[in-house]
């Protein structure tokens, strides 16, 4: 089976700095995989290359059989990639439900002229969109908060609203950029279960960037480790935990040597 996302030799340079350096990455349909790495390793830059925020300097990105590098973000989204952001980026002055409705854009078909005359097609579509938004709101556990301005929602609710908005596009693949950042252990573990449910019940392929090792090790099937834009390791959580390169990248060379014996059960 061809991978859902296939990034070949992706490079993104800013001036002389290669933020992502000849990076190869595949993810299969239905997987939950993670990309980890120290701050500034190029993880988010890679996300941006995949979603069209950046045009890769070199390399190719195939998604679901389409060559997408260099395309505008909205077209890539229409192929079925949704994402959330490291720093929550909701439409802060719009209500929760409006945020989700915006997320549903790729599915809506009516033209603005139809909105002027309010024909049947328009009314039906709006009705369905609203119902779908309600359903998603409930799905992420925000029922009853739909009419609140996003900006006024508590932090955890904002994270979940961002997820609901990403799901509204009915994506094939979801890119989550640090979904548990700023959450306490309980909330993180809730989020972990939720992500797994998304894959199991809705069938969405999930790619995570995450710092919380407990989450990463607990949920990922495959982990790719980046450092200075390069891929330094790849494998199952168990393989990654024992990988010397990875420990060196996180802790430095000396520390890696000292810790080598203790790595087995440290993270899980």
């Amino acid at each position, binding site marked *: 089976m061809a991978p859902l996302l296939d990034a070949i030799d992706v490079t993104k340079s800013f001036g002389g700095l290669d933020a992502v350096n000849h990076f190869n990455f595949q993810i299969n349909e239905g997987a939950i995989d993670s990309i980890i790495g120290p701050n500034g390793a190029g993880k988010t830059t890679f996300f941006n290359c995949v979603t069209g925020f950046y045009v890769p300097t070199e390399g190719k990105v195939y998604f679901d059989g389409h060559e997408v590098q260099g395309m505008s973000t*909205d077209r890539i989204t229409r192929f079925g990639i949704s994402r959330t952001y490291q720093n929550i980026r909701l*439409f802060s002055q719009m209500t929760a439900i409006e945020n989700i409705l915006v997320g549903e854009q790729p599915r809506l078909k009516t033209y603005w002229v139809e909105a002027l005359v309010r024909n049947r097609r328009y009314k039906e579509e709006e009705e369905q969109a609203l119902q779908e938004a309600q359903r998603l709101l409930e*799905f992420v556990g925000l029922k009853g*908060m739909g009419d609140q301005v996003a900006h006024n929602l508590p932090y955890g609710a904002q994270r979940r609203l961002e997820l609901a908005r990403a799901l509204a596009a009915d994506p094939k693949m979801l890119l989550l950029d640090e979904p548990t950042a700023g959450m306490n252990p309980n909330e993180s573990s809730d989020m972990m279960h939720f992500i797994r449910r998304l894959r199991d019940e809705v069938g969405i392929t999930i790619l995570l960037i995450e710092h919380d090792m407990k989450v990463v090790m607990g949920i990922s099937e495959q982990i790719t480790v980046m450092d200075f834009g390069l891929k330094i390791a790849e494998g199952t959580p168990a393989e990654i935990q024992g990988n010397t390169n990875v420990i060196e990248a996180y802790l430095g060379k000396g520390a890696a040597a000292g810790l080598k014996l203790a790595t087995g059960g440290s993270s899980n």
Partner: protein
Amino acid sequence: MQNANEIPETTSRIALKYGLIGGLIAVYVSVLGMVEAFSLRPLVGDFLTLGYVLLVAGPIGAGILTARALRDRTSRRNGELASLGAGAVSSSLLLVLLAVIVLLVIRPDEAGAEVTLQVMFVNLTSGLAEILTFGLGNLLGALMLVLFCTIMGGAGGAAVLIRDPLRAGLVTGVILTLMVGIFSETVSQVLQQVSGRVIINLVFVQKSLRPIPAVLVFALGFSLAYFRVPRRTRTRFQKLPQTRQQRTKQGLYIAGLLLLIMIPWLTGLFLSQALFLIGLYIIMGLGLNIVVGYAGLLDLGYVAFFAFGAYAMGILTTTTELGITNLTFWTALPICVAAGVLWGLVLGFPVLRLRGDYLAIVTLGFGEIVRILALSDWLAPIQGGPQGVLHIPNPVIFGITLNTPQTMYYVVLLGVILAAFVTIRLRDARLGRQWMSMREDEDVSEAMGINLVSTKLLAFAIGAGFSALAGAILAARQSTIFPHSFNLIISLNVLAGIIVGGLGSIPGVIVGMLILVGLPELLREFTEYRFLMYGILLIVVMLLRPEGLLPEATRKRELHSDEPGMTPADAAPMEPAGAGGQD
């Protein structure tokens, strides 16, 4: 010991601070000449003039601010004393002014001055001194001034500190009476249309309210607020059964529509012209509201589309040799709007990639280019250049030529209704959400699958269409158009109007334009000072309500169909189910 001293210390300092500010304001309006000029304009009887109102605005303001600052901190009595003190402090500056006038203007020789100060400050006259001393002579007058300002400071403080139904009643009564006095010309024009001269003579002496009607007006304002009439009506309305509520609402809509239709005949020629102008600005405001308020694209060259619509109407319908067709107003109108839309697309394309300030600068440039082109000889064979387009026919409907402000009002009214309709429909639709999300975060909305190019162009084009509509109506009303009519100030006025009203809010646009376009018209009698008053008003509004007078309300969209009669208050605090914890 120290603590006990500290509280009165800060209290007196606050009173001193606001007293000096209030005094400065009073001195400022005096030196500007406003006090003396407006002492000739009585508001109530012949004793309360606008001049005195302006003079005491400083001390009253000082009292209000002092009382506000102290309200939560010290005992109420302290606050009242302090506001009296603030009034007294503000009078001290006026005393200084008085002394300056007496010594350096009226009797410069005795003070040994070489020239009178009046050479530089033309408004420092003996007339002003007489107003400041109430015509009682310098010594007694100065005492009176101190007393007067002190009382006014206290009154300002009282306006904050008295308990509520009484406070609201007094404040509303005073404000309403002053308003009727200031806008007496407008009020009497309306009265003239409704009832003729007899009533006017009963209510007004020239422009001033007679004392007894003034008391009645005060009583009206007082009782409205004291008995909480608006709120009670609303609660009583909400207690009505659903069907009755709906019927009442429909009745109100019909009454409102009837009022809108009757207004020009109730208000007369002059006010109808003002209403016509306000209507044009509302159409433009609604258009710019789409571009700036919804889509978040700051467009300062909006007047270009207005000009385009006006010239399109001119060229299509004029009877001079510039006219290229002999269309009537009604057939030319859709063409003008379409031309505006097209022009919006043309101007939209090059600026698609620009954001924020850069967009503002470039559109500003476009606006100026259009005006200069309109002035140039180069285009003169097409649109008349500096000579403009003349002899544009008025609209004709059923054989009636709409050539008065009163009849043209209806054309504008139709335009406003059309613009509001389009705005509301689009706002609630997918396109409206696309615009708003683009305003909030352009990158993310693109990542939501929104095509920025078409969404932005649609905002520009629809906004431009509204503006062209307004321009076309203006051309047909005035019969002549000149390039000078389309300068930057129109763009700025429209923008200021929608910001004052509340960006993104349709009622806000209407209120904003009523204030920004309507007030200068109503204040015409105050000629040289009206833009000063208007500017001060703008600053005050923006300081007190930066989000605008009627900001956009968030719409309730989450259905609660499964829980009938559920109020938002019940719905809000609900424990999230399913995944994720909550902070």
